[in-house]
């Protein structure tokens, strides 16, 4: 790592509170009435991120592969739980296991390739590389699975008659939902492909901005960003296909009947 050009101190951070003070003044003047909420939000940002900083410092001091693998597993478990919680409108059997299992598989595959073959980090569990990259992969994968699962259920609701028509002609379940699977994965992929198209033209991505601010050569920052973009798209494709491969099966009985009751919302 090259040396940081601008080291920001806690005093500097307190000075940046001036920006919030200006905002507070403005909303007071316009009687918008959110002063208290804004103040609490500002304080929470400070406390949560400061705490996170100390937690990360602690993690970064650890030098045992088992600790790192457990930590990443815990992150995946939390993400799996969050994904399951977001899907509470519908009752998809085994959804927690499906989403957590798919995240495990995807994260460790992608993470392994990056740490071992691209960055060639020594040791492979070097926390400065492993934790942030794992975090990015998990976060992206989680959002994408939520999007793709919701879209898939929407497709099934919309196409139930078509699916039963196909089943009645002798189609296997996989064929009967082929169009729904395709549309669901496309819906989750398109925003990611769009950002592959637009990156660098309108907005500098967050990781790159952060690296440049902390003094990294823009050409190195760019290389990181390119790798991250490829990592994102691969993660999304693997995890979405994996999740849907198991989710669609939940909507059919072993007798290849559409389980229509699963398409009804739990709380109408």
């Amino acid at each position, binding site marked *: 790592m090259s040396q940081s050009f601008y080291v920001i101190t806690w005093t500097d951070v307190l000075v940046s509170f001036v920006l919030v003070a200006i905002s507070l003044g403005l909303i007071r003047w316009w009687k918008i009435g959110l002063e208290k909420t804004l103040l609490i939000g500002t304080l929470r940002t400070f406390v949560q991120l400061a705490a996170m900083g100390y937690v990360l410092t602690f993690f970064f001091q650890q030098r045992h592969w088992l600790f790192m693998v457990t930590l990443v597993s815990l992150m995946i478990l939390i993400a799996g739980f969050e994904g399951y919680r977001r899907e509470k409108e519908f009752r998809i059997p085994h959804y927690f296991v499906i989403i957590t299992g798919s995240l495990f598989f995807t994260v460790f595959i992608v993470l392994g390739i990056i740490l071992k073959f691209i960055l060639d980090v020594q040791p492979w569990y070097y926390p400065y590389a492993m934790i942030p990259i794992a975090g990015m992969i998990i976060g992206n994968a989680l959002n994408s699975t939520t999007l793709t699962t919701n879209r898939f259920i929407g497709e099934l609701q919309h196409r139930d008659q078509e699916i039963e028509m196909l089943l009645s*002609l002798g189609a296997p379940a996989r064929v009967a939902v*082929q169009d729904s699977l395709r549309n669901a994965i496309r819906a989750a992929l398109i925003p990611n492909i769009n950002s592959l198209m637009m990156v660098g033209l309108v907005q500098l991505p967050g990781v790159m901005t952060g690296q440049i601010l902390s003094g990294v050569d823009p050409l190195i920052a760019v290389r990181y960003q390119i790798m991250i973009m490829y990592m994102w798209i691969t993660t999304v494709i693997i995890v979405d296909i994996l999740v849907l491969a198991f989710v669609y099966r939940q909507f059919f009985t072993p007798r290849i009947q559409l389980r229509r009751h699963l398409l009804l919302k739990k709380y109408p």
Partner: protein
Amino acid sequence: MNKEPLFRLTSVSKSIGGKTLLDNISLQIEAGDFLSILGPSGAGKSTLLRLFNGLDSPTAGTIEYQGKPLFSYPMTGLRKRVGMVFQNPVMVRGTVRDNLLLTQRWEQPSTNLAEETLVSVLAQVDLSPAILDQDTKTISGGEKQRVALARVLLNKPEVLLLDEPTANLDPQLARRIVRLIHQLFKQLKLTIIMVSHDYSLLSKYTTRIAFLIGGRIVEEGAADILEQPSTETVKTFLAKGAI
């Protein structure tokens, strides 16, 4: 020749969410029957029909097909033998040809259908070959229903399940479709199970009738029970006319 009936339903019931839709139905259907299941809407007719090709399972009771439990057959194969046409003929996006070739999506490529096969199946349902490359969005409801029929016939079924196939058509077209179905029944030696609430349309063609009212078969027999029903429930139903 196998003396087993084609279908044998024994004490079949179906309930969903505590509501009984079919109540203790026993019924035999012989090969070559044209059975009409008549009854008011909400009587459970479609629910019953969906059991014959395993789109739904009964909650209680057994269904046999050619002497063996229905669900002992591989479902995809069974559904080709027991074809179904729905009330609302769903078309997949694309042309009539795309819809006729749907089974190619999962059949071996070796079963590629020759153009003559498509033309002849269209002739069977009284459609001209010119319709093959039309977008299904541009064809009429009656044409869609016939394309749906042709699509099922390409599977060479032994049984045709028809769920109110004329419900959304005007009376003249409805009569034409029923006549067509009867022609297919004769020509292809099919067994037909047709659900309808409109008995006036069927009396000329059907060989057997079952009245399904309130989830129960209240009366069943040859076509002439339309003239002389023996139960009060059926008399009341018939007196109301086609609903």
